[in-house]
């Protein structure tokens, strides 16, 4: 129902405000000025002629793509009387849980800092800056002593927090009753069933050709039309390997303009200037995860170049407007020592956890220029990945994904779920790590990229939860035979041979409803 709150003019004003001052804005102005020399532009119909020319020369399409991108990251429309924290997360008990979790992380980081006697941040002395500039492209060859550092948290720690989430207005007894949910997540969020999923994901059905099953060699017209929205729709059936890089930059509207290149160089300069404790966490994470992975160890240097710059990027702070999380803060003194200023630490507000580098690793197969790799990763983070490590009621948020996975399993494979529950192998304990990483590092890369095509195509992470349930369905026979959590984990330890699209299709469209 259209009420006074959802007036499109407010959205339009917000988008215009955001686009003003961008490189695109100045380019459009320049183009409009230059086209005045053209013979087809007449003084009497100046406005219409300029508009027509901008449309014909493809600039209108670029503007459309930019607006489309802004709509993706605009905070949801709130009621005028709703306070800002309500826009970030409407449920009070989830806000409280998120705040409690953040406090725990901050305490952990502070104690690491005090124990090791290393400041959270310091300015690098000039010789060290020169050294780092020389070694920029081969930071992986460095073997710093990281034994004292430990990851701030691992996904399983976060799982315990989610399991403990309770709505005070809900009556949840521990016994298995008619009303109880068998899984670990005890929160009543709205999650779709298979019949609703069939309506949301019709392009995945058997009647549509899927890339990853039925491969063609033609170049889609979407690429030449340079249309973000059309590319997003196209991606629902998968992207051809050779065109995936182009299509993803089109969908995310993250081109390597000179503006982006300058931005990346600025971030690199900031990495050289200041050394952050968080950098050591990144090094440790890369060494522990990506460097040990058969597919990704070759990209170690790229990962440092992207993640270190990511930590210094203050434009990432914008996503906190629509994320339930709040960036950690600290205070520093001014040069004179008289004033105290509040600053965000790290500058992008994101404290990396164990496995964080796996969000970047698969992208290294698509982009080999660090600045391009960086802008694609950043856009994917502020649209999707941030939802995988915060407590929120959003349909693509981690809590919803876990609940969706459990509900799908309980509804369609009740025997399996009950059996696993009885042997102490709650399915979410096994699937959680897949969901948090959006399957990065668990599936083979070509299959992972086909999954991520659909995340982009449907602009949602829901498909990750559906795939997790589909994997359990696929290995159901073996799982019914196991008698312990360890053996259940062994059955599901190796997913590298799985083919994502057939699994999803069978689960969504061949399950009896």
């Amino acid at each position, binding site marked *: 129902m259209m009420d006074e*709150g959802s007036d499109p003019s407010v959205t339009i004003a917000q988008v215009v405000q955001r686009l003003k001052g961008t490189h695109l804005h100045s380019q459009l102005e320049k183009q409009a000025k230059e086209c005045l020399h053209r013979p087809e532009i007449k003084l009497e119909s100046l406005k219409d002629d300029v508009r027509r020319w901008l449309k014909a020369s493809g600039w209108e399409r670029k503007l459309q793509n930019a607006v489309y991108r802004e709509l993706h990251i605009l905070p949801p429309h*709130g009621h005028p009387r709703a306070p800002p924290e309500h826009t970030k997360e409407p*449920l009070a008990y989830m806000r409280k849980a998120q705040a409690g979790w953040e406090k725990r992380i901050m305490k952990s980081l502070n104690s690491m800092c005090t124990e090791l006697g290393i400041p959270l941040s310091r*300015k690098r002395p000039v010789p060290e800056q020169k050294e780092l500039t020389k070694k920029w492209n081969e930071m992986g060859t460095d073997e710093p002593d990281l034994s004292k550092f430990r990851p701030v948290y691992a996904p399983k720690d976060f799982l315990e927090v989610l399991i403990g989430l309770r709505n005070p207005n809900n009556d949840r007894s521990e016994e298995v009753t008619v009303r109880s949910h068998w899984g670990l997540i005890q929160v009543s969020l709205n999650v779709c069933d298979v019949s609703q999923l069939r309506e949301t994901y019709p392009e995945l059905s058997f009647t549509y050709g899927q890339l990853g099953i039925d491969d063609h060699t033609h170049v889609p017209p979407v690429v030449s039309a340079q249309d973000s929205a059309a590319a997003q729709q196209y991606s629902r059936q998968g992207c051809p390997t050779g065109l995936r890089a182009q299509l993803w930059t089109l969908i995310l509207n993250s081109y390597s303009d000179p503006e982006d290149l300058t931005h990346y160089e600025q971030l690199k300069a900031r990495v050289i200037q200041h050394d952050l404790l968080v950098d050591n966490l990144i090094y440790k994470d890369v060494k522990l995860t990506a460097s040990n992975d058969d597919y990704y160890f070759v990209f170690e240097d790229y990962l440092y170049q992207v993640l270190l710059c990511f930590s*210094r990027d*203050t434009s990432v702070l914008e996503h906190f407007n629509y994320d339930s999380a709040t960036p950690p803060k600290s205070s*520093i003194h001014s040069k004179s020592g008289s004033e105290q200023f509040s*600053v*965000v*630490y790290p500058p992008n507000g994101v404290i990396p956890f164990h496995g964080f580098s796996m969000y970047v690793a698969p992208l290294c197969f698509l982009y080999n220029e660090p600045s391009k790799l960086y802008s694609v990763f950043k856009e994917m983070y502020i649209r999707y990945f941030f939802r995988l490590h915060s407590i929120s009621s959003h349909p693509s948020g981690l809590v919803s994904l876990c609940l969706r996975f459990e509900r799908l399993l309980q509804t369609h494979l009740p025997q399996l779920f009950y059996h696993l529950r009885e042997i102490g192998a709650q399915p979410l304990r096994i699937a959680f790590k897949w969901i948090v990483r959006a399957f990065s590092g668990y599936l083979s890369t070509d299959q992972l990229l086909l999954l991520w095509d659909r995340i982009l195509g449907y602009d949602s992470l829901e498909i990750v939860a559906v795939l997790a349930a589909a994997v359990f369905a696929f290995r159901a026979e073996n799982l019914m035979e196991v008698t312990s959590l360890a053996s259940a984990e062994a059955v599901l330890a190796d997913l590298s041979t799985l083919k994502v699209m057939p699994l999803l299709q069978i689960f969504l469209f061949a399950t009896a409803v």
Partner: protein
Amino acid sequence: MSVEPVSCTIKTPVALQIGDTVSDLSRPGVYITDITLAEPVNIQEISFKNYYTAYLTVRVQQREDGSVKWVTCLRNHCLMANPHAEAGSHDYFSIYRQQMSAKPDNVMTVRLILRQPSSEWLNFNIEEINIYPCVKEDTEWDVPAWLSTLTPVETSLDLNGLPDPETVSSSIQQMWALTEIMQASQNAASIGRFDVDGSYDVKLLSFT
């Protein structure tokens, strides 16, 4: 548009239950809240914060030509699309005059009927209720008498080497126009600095 809400008294919600409210084990699914207004109001908007109410019915008691009557303005307005799930449970809502089936004029009392059919929730309610009156468009603003008696000062000034006020004021006007243009074209792009005067020596994180 900052209209002040009207003052009203909100009574405690009364549960509608079949059977003994004390000994009955099942929780009520319907609550009724009455809001009495200090004087008859033409309602423009009722805004509130939801707390797990699924459906809302609004009835108003109108005073018309000496008699009072009850009228239903809104029947079973859905606040939570799925009564068993969290979506909409904590949201802020506004019910506008245009959405109501009967014109809420000369309203003395507003009765809100809250329904929550799901057994998931222990309690349900609505909070922060505010009722906003219609803004009269033909209000005349009285100009104070002393404003109309002001006349410009015509006496000539003794400049003493200072520049002519006319030229100064015209150049100031130009500067003002420039600042207005600058302000109007302000963009959302940030510079991106995270340090303070080049220093970013962070010791420990602080908890607020």
